[in-house]
């Protein structure tokens, strides 16, 4: 079902800053939307307002054209999975899954059928008689998923459900959530601070910071076309190399960027955005994957020395000291260099990002 947030504001008494600052958002029916941001950015508060666990100070929330802003949580036809809670400890797995069905006074036989059906969907049908002490963390979170599904909600809300699990389990459950989403076709809203989780899960990513929505887009849009310096920095690991710089007019009509210790020529795609920016301070950025090691000197190259090498598996993250700056560079493990090795970095114009240092907005006026 389509979820619509309009001018949503939430303040907490102990803070003068709004936790959620007048946000507007459309989540289409059947979409898996991920709210992504650092802790305290308002993503969980937003989710809790959709669930009805927090009351917004102003604004409206509608699900499938139905205004639910003032409804009690139980009447919203949503389900929620929490980070730090998965199973009611006094009930076994079966009773946990049946619990939401008792609220709607379902008949016993129907409850039994539904519980077994849903348990099978999340592969816990063999655990139904187990107590909370006899299930692992991953299994408990599956119970939470089953309990969420059992009432066939219009919207699934997930508040960092995987954060308390170990890495391997997290990846496994992530895939299952994706599969559940595809099988049920229900709208999912998933909150996480883990940008990798957001990229792999989301049809749509909503990046939040300080109570504001920074950018909404498909994973690739957010990764390759960050609208501002915050999104550029937050999305992607290892994070983007960023340096402060000043834009200068070139005699030939182009622009050069003066960075600490070196300068670069800026490609034509920036020219529109830079029209009124000559002499202004900007933030330049390039992702570690976009930097190439080259043998010959040339335009937009700096030479330096490897200072640190982190093995990531098939690829290495090397840190290169060049022009007194430290650059993170991703290279294939076969081409990796040893600490102390001299090298030359090339920054491809097509992969550069530029942000206005004043408002941190991207100077590539892409899609707005």
């Amino acid at each position, binding site marked *: 079902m389509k979820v619509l947030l309009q001018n949503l504001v939430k303040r907490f*008494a102990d803070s003068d800053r709004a936790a959620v600052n007048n946000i507007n958002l459309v989540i289409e029916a059947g979409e898996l939307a991920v709210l992504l941001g650092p802790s305290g950015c308002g993503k969980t508060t937003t989710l809790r307002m959709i*669930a*009805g*666990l927090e009351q917004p100070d102003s604004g409206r929330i509608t699900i499938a054209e139905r205004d639910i802003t003032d409804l*009690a*949580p*139980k009447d*919203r036809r*949503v*389900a*929620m999975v*929490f*980070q*730090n*809670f998965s199973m*009611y*400890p*006094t009930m076994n797995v079966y009773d946990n899954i049946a*619990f*939401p069905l008792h*609220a*709607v006074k379902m008949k016993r036989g129907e409850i039994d059928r539904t519980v077994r059906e849903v348990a099978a969907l999340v592969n816990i049908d063999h655990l139904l008689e187990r107590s909370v002490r006899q299930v692992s963390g991953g299994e408990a979170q599956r119970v*939470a998923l089953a*309990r969420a599904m059992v*009432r066939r909600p219009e919207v699934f*809300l997930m508040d960092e459900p995987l954060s308390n699990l170990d890495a391997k389990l997290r990846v496994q459950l992530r895939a299952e959530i994706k599969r559940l989403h595809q099988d049920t076709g229900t709208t999912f809203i998933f909150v996480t601070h883990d940008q990798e989780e957001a990229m792999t899960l989301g049809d749509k990513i909503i990046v939040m910071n300080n109570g504001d929505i920074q950018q909404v887009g498909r994973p690739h849009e957010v990764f390759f076309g960050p609208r501002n310096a915050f999104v550029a920095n937050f999305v992607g690991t290892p994070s983007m190399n960023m340096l402060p710089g000043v834009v200068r007019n070139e005699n030939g009509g182009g622009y050069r960027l003066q960075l600490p210790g070196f300068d670069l020529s800026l490609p034509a795609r920036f020219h529109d955005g830079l029209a009124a920016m000559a002499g202004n301070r900007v933030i330049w950025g390039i992702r570690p994957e976009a930097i190439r090691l080259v043998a010959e000197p040339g335009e937009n190259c700096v030479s330096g020395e490897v200072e640190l090498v982190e093995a990531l598996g098939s690829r290495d993250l090397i840190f290169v000291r060049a022009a007194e700056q430290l650059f993170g560079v991703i290279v294939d493990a076969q081409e990796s260099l040893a600490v102390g090795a001299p090298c030359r970095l090339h920054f491809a114009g097509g992969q550069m990002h530029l942000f206005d240092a004043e408002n941190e907005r991207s100077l590539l006026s892409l899609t707005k």
Partner: protein
Amino acid sequence: MRVPTSERVFAYVILIVMAMLVIAPVLAGSITAFKPQIIWVSSPPTWVFEPTLENFEFVFFTRKGWVYLRNSLIISIGSVAVALLLGVPAAYAFARFRFRSSKALMQWLISLRMIPPIVVGLPFYAMFLYLERGLGIGLRDTFPGLIITYQTFLLPLVIWMMRGYFAELPAAMEESAMVEGYTRLGALWRVVLPVVFPGIVATAILNFIFAWNEFFLALILAGNRTSTLPMTAGTYIVRTRVEWGNLFAVNMIIMAPVIVLTIILRRQLVKGLTFGILE
């Protein structure tokens, strides 16, 4: 952590000495309760004798001990029930909601426990008199009168202990139930209370022991109709003599339920006692 043997021995010596200090008088008294009247206060004390139940028979039946036992049970159980009924929801509110001066209120509640009973007892007596003469509401020498008065001391303990139990549970537990179709009260009843049930038991016992042992307020506010066991213990100390055997028989009747409850539930009691206070 490994404790060196010398320290361990030292600790045990201290613990044994302290235990002796506590147990010895109780033991000496309890033995006296089984002595026939003739050797209650023989000097030197008689250690070998044929135990008798005549003291118990005397205090329990001749002196109507069973009535006072019944009164004590009514007052203690009634007080604990009322304190739980009011205190558990209050504790939940304190644990989950932030409202104006909630912190100050909690501190005020604990300060109530520090007041000596006499500071409370006399004003209560005065209030009961006013109510009786002014409005015709008789609370002196009634069970409700004592049960209400005891709330001054029981409610703070219930609220502090139970708040500790509630605060330990993730709020997501009720929130989950609320999203799944229940009201907050429904979630409290079906999800939270079953989880904190052991805590409720520990709280109930601790409060029961307080009400059961209480002497001073009962002395001021109770009367012929509502005398409690601790009050009657005093009646065996008369001007001319102390009826040692009878006095200790009453004492044993008073101690028995406390000791039994403590032994059965000592684990929950320790947990209950350290809860909340250690925050």
